[in-house]
């Protein structure tokens, strides 16, 4: 399936330059697995990085230092094995139970083994804190449910893994990413007939305006 909602250009630059938190990067990498268009954009952003590195003035910090490193490199070439053709890359698994690889450090590798927690009728969640303190949240919402209305204190990137939902921004189906910033307030409604599983990274607490949502906030702890 070809995704119809893509990463924001500023997110592409952030990921290419290594400036995104590991939590946001995990969601970006999950989206890239299934999106050739964003992979092409990422490749372009990395190419910009390569050119910027290339065009720097190289103020060499003393030739003796360079010579010493150069000698060390020549020694390493002696010891290194001859260049080999790398093995073909491993295709992303087609096992329907397998979570995308970038999520494994946070959620394990199997949908079936996920330990969902109750959040409300037809709503389950798993929350984990990433290495830099950002939140990763996986949600499983039954078909036809209204999610609480919320906006974001910072950046939220959500990848839809299964099912679909609609909000003011459009229809989001499996493979799509919703890359939102603090200006957006939205209330997703999951599509009829199939539950929706999505995974989000947040680099700041969500702001829930409604009383119901405020009750949910302590459950999330975000």
């Amino acid at each position: 399936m070809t995704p119809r909602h893509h990463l924001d250009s500023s997110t592409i630059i952030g990921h290419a330059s290594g400036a995104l938190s590991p939590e946001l990067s995990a969601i970006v990498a999950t989206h890239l697995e299934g999106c050739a268009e964003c992979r092409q954009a990422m490749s372009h952003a990395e190419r910009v990085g390569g050119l910027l590195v290339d065009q720097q003035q190289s103020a060499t910090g003393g030739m003796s230092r360079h010579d010493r490193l150069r000698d060390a490199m020549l020694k390493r070439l002696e010891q290194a094995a001859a260049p080999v053709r790398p093995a073909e890359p491993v295709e992303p698994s087609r096992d329907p139970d397998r979570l995308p690889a970038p999520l494994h450090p946070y959620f394990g590798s199997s949908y079936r083994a996920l330990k969902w927690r109750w959040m409300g009728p037809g709503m389950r969640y798993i929350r984990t804190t990433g290495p830099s303190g950002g939140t990763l949240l996986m949600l499983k919402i039954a078909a036809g449910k209204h999610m609480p209305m919320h906006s974001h204190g910072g950046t939220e990137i959500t990848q839809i893994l299964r099912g679909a939902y609609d909000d003011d921004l459009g229809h989001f189906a499996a493979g799509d990413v919703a890359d939102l910033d603090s200006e957006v307030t939205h209330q997703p409604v999951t599509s009829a007939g199939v539950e929706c599983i999505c995974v989000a990274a947040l680099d700041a607490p969500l702001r829930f305006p409604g009383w119901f949502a405020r009750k949910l906030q302590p459950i999330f702890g975000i």
Partner: protein
Amino acid sequence: MSTASSTHNDAAAWSVEMSAIAQRQDRDSFMRIYDHFMPRLCLYLRGVGAVESVAEELAQEALLRLWQNAAGYDPAKSAVSTWLFRIARNLHIDHGRRRDNQAASRGELDDSSWCTDAEVTEDQVDQAGLQRRIDELSAVQARLIRMSYFEAKSHQEIAGELDMPLGTVKSHLRRAFERLQQELGEGA
């Protein structure tokens, strides 16, 4: 600063050196790449926060991987500069996470192999055009792009440092990237 045409010639020349490394393990070819990129990679790594000894260690490692993986190099897939940038960046991120005892990896394909994505290509002939587009960015766009790449600053950090709303930082970066992505040759 390189001119557009020398960048184009460089990119093609590095591909020739890479073929020599791949076909006959030509050390002279490798050392020409080394002499050009080693100081630049060190500068880049210092910029994103590595202390000098770490920057040197990571730059050496990136170049050694270039040697070891030369056989898989396809100039239609990526320029040597792109590949070295990618490896140096990932080595730096992994080094930071190891230092902070963070087990989680960046979660990407094994990055010591070349880009093998059949759908992703990088036209070498366009290197000169892209270089020109970088040179033509507005002052504020160029500054934000540099802060992103060379200081690895998050958009929030950039916004704080320049006293600029986050949304403005993002829209400048978005416009800069769209400019850099336009069909090369258009309006050039």
